[in-house]
């Protein structure tokens, strides 16, 4: 891909689309839901690179008009980068970002004396 772009004059970069997202949170995770229709699941990249979290996907279409969905979010140390899960169905991407154990609410039992 790199060599190809060098051999050809680059006149038009890929058109970048910003998908609409919903962001939800519960005690154990952040849930990011994005509208990214028409993708092959293999072309979707979910990158966690603290303090950033990025969704990036290339739409398979005509090579003359490349289109990329991209959206970057800032996350903090409450998210465990090792425990990020993503699923793609009906053109909607759902990313589950689990919170680190230390930042999940824990119920404390009150001891009766």
């Amino acid at each position: 891909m790199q060599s190809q772009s060098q051999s050809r004059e680059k006149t038009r970069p890929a058109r970048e689309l910003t998908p609409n997202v919903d962001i939800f949170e519960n005690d154990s995770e952040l849930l990011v839901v994005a509208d990214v229709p028409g993708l092959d699941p293999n072309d979707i990249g979910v990158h966690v690179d603290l303090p950033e979290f990025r969704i990036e996907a290339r739409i398979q279409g005509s090579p003359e008009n490349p289109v990329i969905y991209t959206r970057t979010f800032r996350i903090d140390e409450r998210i465990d980068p090792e425990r990020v899960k993503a699923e793609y169905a009906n053109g909607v991407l759902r990313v589950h970002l689990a919170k680190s154990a230390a930042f999940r609410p824990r119920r404390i039992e009150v001891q009766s004396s």
Partner: protein
Amino acid sequence: MLVRFNDRSGFPVFRASRGLPVASLRREFDRLFGDLERAPSFAALNPPTVTFADTGEALSLRAELPGLTEKDVDISVTANALTLKASRKVEAPEGYAVHRRERQGFSFTQSYELPARIDPEKVQASLKQGVLTLTLPKAAEAQAKRVTVSATA
């Protein structure tokens, strides 16, 4: 509410809500300030993206409908018109607090006048990963015919 099939000047310009000067001004501001105003009332005006093509033997339609399944889409065709209905509801999952909501539900109905007669029996539709693709084969009489030029001596 018929819209010309090949109208490239933007999508349903004939809708009352879109035609109002206030609405178009809003849209202009929305475009200028981009992300600032992704408020529900603004985004709700945005219909799904629909594109058309004429491949010679057939007309085709592509609509982006993320989150929809077959049962959310209703298509009816005649020899020269197409009606597309689609709706989606977006609900917050149970037990989650909401941080940001940009994805909108919609209820969309649009009729299109087709530029060529088609064969309604042969129309094919598929919905794959939120993209609806319709193939509308042209009727035999609407197919391009090759004219042979005969030389006269």
